[in-house]
């Protein structure tokens, strides 16, 4: 399944709420966490967004850098959740 819509709205959310992401072009595979674009308090807002926007529940064990390292990873994670695979 094509997860472009998930990527798109996640990217919009990040660009709107984390202005540091606009300092240069933000690609789907650009690092979000180690670059400091999203910090440890900001990431909680991102999790809340994902839960409400995509109607998924992020389990505690899924709060890992692997799932949130970039837009592509987030979209893949969300898609898996929606398909009941994660």
């Amino acid at each position: 399944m094509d997860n472009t819509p998930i990527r798109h709205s996640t990217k919009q959310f990040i660009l709107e709420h984390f202005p540091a992401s606009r300092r240069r072009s933000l690609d789907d595979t650009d690092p979000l966490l180690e670059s400091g674009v999203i910090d440890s308090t900001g990431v909680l807002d991102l999790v809340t967004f994902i839960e409400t926007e995509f109607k998924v529940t992020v389990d505690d064990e899924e709060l890992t850098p692997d799932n949130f390292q970039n837009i592509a990873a987030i979209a893949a994670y969300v898609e898996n959740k929606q398909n009941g695979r994660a």
Partner: protein
Amino acid sequence: MLATSAQRLPDKEALVHGSQRLSYSEVDRSVNALAHGLQSAGLQRGERIGIFLEPSIAQALSLFAASKAASVFVPVNHLLFPEQVAHIMRDCRMKALITTKSRLADLAGVLSEVPSLSFVVVVGEGDTPAVPIPVYSFETFAAASADCVRDQSIGKDLAAILYTSGSTGKPKGVMLTHSQVMAGSSIVSTYLEITDSERILSILPFSFDAGLNQLMTAFQRSGTLVMMTFTFARQIVEMLAKEEVTGLAGVPTLWSLLAQPQSGLHNTPLPHLRYITNTGGAMPQTVLATLRKALPTTRIFLMYGLTEAFRSTYLPPEELDRRPTSMGRAIPDTEILVVNEHGQPCKPGEVGELVHRGPTVSLGYWGQPDLTARVLRPHPFIAPELQDGEKVCYSGDLVKTDEEGFLYFVGRRDTMIKSSGYRISPTEVEEVLYQSGYVRTAAVIGVPDEVLGQRIKAFVVSRNGGPQEPERLIAFCGEKVPHHMVPKSIEYLDELPMTSSGKVDYPTLRRREGL
């Protein structure tokens, strides 16, 4: 210090980061090789070298190599943007910089503003960006076989400059000598009872006095320092368990994140965690209660320090039940006075400024003798004949004591904001608001926040009655300064309240917020 640990326990694990593990002898060898490389590249005694790296083995090695080369290290927080890094480089007339290739690419545009910078050392793989000064490889330096570099520095020499903000202006560089840094680690390791069996988890940046102090205490006592960066509090809990960490230092924001259920702290046994320390602001009482429940065998030390005096007070864990809101008493070999506005000692319960005397008082601000003279002054109560030029540190923090001399934080004497452990100058944030071109006047204050300690609130008057667009202003700030300096909320006013002398009336703004 490093050489002593390397001789005493050469095979002891010194630094851990991810899958990298270095023994003291390996650290000693790399540090010596790096120091040799830095010297051969032209770094001389007393010259400033910036270390602009994310937490990593290379970052820790760089600090010690800079000292070994008799230069002054300037740890630069890895979250800063190029404009802020350029300010630091210009301010201390930086001679050399150790950074990564991608960070150097980000900095390429501002390097021309730093004429003193004569070479760069880069860490890691990839293409080296084209810059007009020589660029050396960190890995080549560290792997070279080098003769033993002779220690030239003595205790009185400058070891480090830590950049921090005050109530006005741009960040200032606090100067610390080797003696002061060493006194800080001796004192802290004494009351935390740190031994060579310690495994300390480092989360606070080395650009922050308490973070640097963790590295120094670990190395002074031949313990192990585990380094990490984190996004989720769970990662910290997992690391505490995996590396059998015995000591952790954090700021209130970190503890708030750890106290949330999804951190997993409450259902992860951490039998090795001997102590935790809080600094950089008061820990919320609800958070403290949660931590005490989740970590029943861990000793909790509430500490207080300011960069200008490195480390100042701590509350012994056995006092937590009786006075959980106290910041404790003076650290060993240190005197803490509370002085009222008439310059007299305060009685218990009376609010006054905390004044610190002891071996960790810094040399003041780099290149700012007037500002230094306001903060570092002669002892108010000792006869001049007995002072021998000694300076005590006027902290700007308002405190009071109870009958038994335990200290309680009351507030700031000035308008400085403290958010997630960072000191933030309101004027620096106001300047960014002005840069947007959307505001006529702006004033910034800190308002209490459960997680951040304080969060930044801006009051603005829009320019020429222009539209009120708080999101646009916040977004502008977010592109100009790091996250911790961006206002969390913006309120539009028709006029800012002014004092009779024509300055912004901050107390009135604070009262609007019920403060």
